[in-house]
């Protein structure tokens, strides 16, 4: 089977394959253009008569659970990244698959982390055919050099849910590592040594996968409350000694950036939002977890306090900073998609206004709306932005896969999307003539804020008008690009082959760009 075939040019002018790993895919057609019809994918009918009356679904080992789930060649295995770099389960799954001689698996993680470098051997020997999910660090390098047997597919968190819902990806076995679970399979992320806050990334998998295995190191008697994952979807429960490494799951010390340059960017971003009238009593924003984004959130808090206003909700990535705003009454709700520190987890446990969300409520493309579009201000990073405001978040300027998409594409649907980014990083200018990989079309990005000036997308005439007399350093994106190049020089293009190693999906499941193989020096 060819990895890919039938290349066409899509609506953003990029060449993308329409046959990927033997299956048909649709090229990107424009934002909001592709609306598939028909019915959603449905999992097999199950009967409670097949499950023990006492509700005890416990199995002795993960291996046994995988065998009982019918693990075999060519299956799709899903895992989730709520343990981030402290995950201990994904590696074990494929150790077992390798031991059983199973081949050609599709690994469908919600994200991969450097701790999964261990899996490179299985990508090499054919146990795993391909990753459909983010590929960072060593896995990104491996994929970028064209060494993966199948073609990689990168999706956003919302896109992952979309692919599950419309049947583009049919999960055979979902393995949900849980900080706390009961023998029936109810599970949550707020209690236990490996507490990570919430399990939202696994929700869709629990509902749609053929077999669902919950693995925990904190087995409690029924009922495990809150039941973020419902045991009614779960086939087997496995108790292990340790599901994750707590110190790598959450940080005890999320900190606002100390870098004066990043603080300056944060300050300018907050000033811009204030001048443009984007902050008001009842507004909402997306709080990132990076140092700059945290600092912006703090400035937003100052502006709210100064005016005696309240934010209606923060969409987070929660940690101690949004929690403080919540507990001080400056913010009414935190709609949390991912919890980053111990304070966030404590708050999730204690505060009724700290809400556990999933890609279903926040990002779902096949839902009847979602709240991503209701957020007033969205603050996001990017590895590159081009002069047409197209943005890249997955590849480094040298062509290597560097980050996953995460919720990045989904949150772009907020009312105003702002990218606070340094104009250059270690001599590498961020604003380019053309981004290496298009992860979002320029129409989705409203403002780029750098330490040397602010560029507003010409489509946002309202923002241009509102800030024209603000005294803020408003420049064109071409001016910013020229400024960076005057300091750094004009970079060469990365050394890429024509060969495609992965594709990037838009939130609707269409293919927005291809990632090419990097030619090593």
């Amino acid at each position, binding site marked *: 089977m060819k990895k890919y075939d039938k290349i066409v040019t899509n609506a953003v002018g990029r060449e993308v394959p329409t046959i990927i790993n033997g299956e048909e895919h649709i090229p990107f057609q424009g934002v909001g253009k592709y609306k598939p019809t028909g019915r959603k994918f449905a999992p097999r009918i199950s009967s409670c008569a097949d499950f023990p009356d006492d509700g005890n679904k416990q199995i002795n080992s993960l291996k046994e659970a995988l065998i009982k789930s019918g693990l075999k060649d060519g299956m799709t295995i899903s895992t989730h990244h709520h343990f981030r770099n402290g995950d201990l389960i994904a590696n074990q799954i494929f150790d077992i698959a390798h031991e059983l001689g199973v081949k050609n698996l599709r690994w469908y993680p919600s994200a991969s982390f450097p701790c999964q470098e261990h899996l490179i051997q299985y990508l090499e020997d054919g146990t795993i055919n391909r990753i459909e999910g983010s590929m960072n660090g060593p896995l990104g390098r491996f994929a970028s050099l064209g060494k993966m047997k199948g073609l990689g597919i990168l999706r956003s968190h919302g896109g992952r849910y979309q692919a599950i819902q419309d049947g583009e990806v049919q999960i055979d076995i979902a393995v949900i590592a849980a900080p706390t679970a009961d023998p029936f399979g109810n599970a949550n992320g707020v209690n236990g040594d490996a507490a990570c806050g919430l399990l939202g990334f696994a929700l869709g998998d629990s509902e749609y996968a053929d077999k669902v295995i919950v693995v925990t190191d904190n087995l409690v008697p029924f009922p495990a409350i809150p039941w973020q994952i419902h045991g009614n979807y779960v086939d087997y429960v496995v108790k292990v000694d340790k599901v994750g490494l707590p110190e790598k799951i959450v940080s005890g010390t999320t900190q606002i950036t100390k870098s*004066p340059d990043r603080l300056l960017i944060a300050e300018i971003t907050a000033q811009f939002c204030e001048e443009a009238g984007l902050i008001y009593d009842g507004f909402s924003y997306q709080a990132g977890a990076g140092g700059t984004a945290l600092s912006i959130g703090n400035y937003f808090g100052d502006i709210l306090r100064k005016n005696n206003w309240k934010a209606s909700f923060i969409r987070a990535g929660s940690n101690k900073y949004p929690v403080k705003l919540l507990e001080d009454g400056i913010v009414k709700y935190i709609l949390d998609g991912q919890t980053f520190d111990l304070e966030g987890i404590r708050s999730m446990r204690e505060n009724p206004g700290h809400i556990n969300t999933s890609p279903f409520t926040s990002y779902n493309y096949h839902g009847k709306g979602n709240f991503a579009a209701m957020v007033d201000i969205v603050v996001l990073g990017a590895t590159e932005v081009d002069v047409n405001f197209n943005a890249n978040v997955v590849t480094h*300027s*040298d062509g290597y896969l560097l980050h996953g998409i995460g919720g990045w594409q989904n949150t772009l649907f907020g009312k105003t999307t702002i990218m606070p980014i340094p104009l250059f990083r*270690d001599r*590498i200018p961020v604003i380019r003539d053309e981004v290496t990989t298009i992860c979002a079309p320029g129409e989705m990005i409203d403002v780029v804020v750098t330490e040397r000036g602010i560029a507003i997308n010409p489509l946002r005439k309202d923002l241009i008008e509102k800030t024209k007399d603000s005294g803020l350093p408003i420049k064109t994106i071409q001016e910013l690009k020229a400024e960076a190049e005057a*300091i750094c020089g004009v970079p*060469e293009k*990365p050394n890429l082959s024509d060969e495609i190693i992965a594709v990037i999906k838009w939130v609707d499941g269409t293919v927005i760009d291809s990632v090419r193989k990097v030619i090593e*020096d």
Partner: protein
Amino acid sequence: MASKIGTAGNKGKGIKSDCYVEFEPKPSGGIEIEIKSKVKTLFGKAIKELAEKVLLHFEIKNVKLIIEDTGAVDFVLAARIEAAIKQTIETDKEFLLPQLEGNTNSTSKETFRFSRLYLPGNSPKLMLNAGIHKPNGLILDLEDAVAPTKKFEASFVVRNALRNLNFYGAERMVRINQGQKGIEDLAFIVPHNVNLILIPKAESAEDILAVNKEIERLKKVYNLNYNIWLMPIVESAKGVIKAYEIATASNNIAAMAIGLEDYTADLGTQRTTEGTESFFARSMVVNASRAAGIQPIDSVFSDVGNMVALAENVQKSKGLGFDGMGCIHPRQIEVIHKNFAPKEKEIEKAKKIFLAFKDAEAKGLGVVSLGSKMIDAPVVKRAQNTIRTAINTGKLDKNWVENN
């Protein structure tokens, strides 16, 4: 300097926007350049071309050159390569990139010097973004912030930075070394449009005159006609006693600063937050500077994490009569500007006096009066100063008279 391999620059953990260069002259074999760089894909070719240009300039034909780069820009790369070359061969040549447009402007004696940010002369990573924090002056430091073994290579970085670093409107300042080494530093900075030179540990008029003598010599050699201002730093008991002598040593002295770390050490005491131990010295510097008609500038505040204490310190400093203060972290700049800036009430009063003066002038009146009060000349002068300061610190629009 005649070692077999010349080296310059920094490498290792935490080093960014810099490079480490090894230069090994060979008897034969041509030019071999090895580049290890994290930006090799995007700038590898540019780095190689620049290295070849530098080698050609110094007529080097056989060499092994290793560049370990962490994203250095051209002027840093060139400085490192030149410093490495000059450790192994004697030459009077210099490799200079075309000077940045805008790095040739002059400043005046009265230029505002509320804040001046120290930048270690051998740490390029701190330089590129320093100006965007809008200090009144940026000091490229050749003295205490550079390790003794790095002084030689730092001179090239500082020279190139004066020419090619964007200062974003900040005054281009250099702190030279003490004594004879400081005199030698001048050849690296005087021909390259430095605006102001800080002379550390000044203790007598002779210290100033020795610097000026070399500046004058260099100005003749290079046929330069721009002003170079001096800011002596008084950092010892003796310097404080001689403050007036130092302040009046020459007419290109624009300001005089006090350095309290060394001064308190010299007194045999500790520096405290309330600063009782330095009250006399600070007052001496203010008094001597005012008597000499130059700006008195306060010492740096070293607790970079404590902005509240900094603000209090600045207000105290302003109260003592200082016109500015040093900073060692960009986040201190705004606090310094805000607290040196005149208060709303001061500005409102100054505006009234200023307008009354203009009015009197327009009517050809010799006496200025506000309401029933007569206003003396020094009051008018102070009001004018307040207005100037308010405009400069962004507290007052520069077209306020028209918009009034």
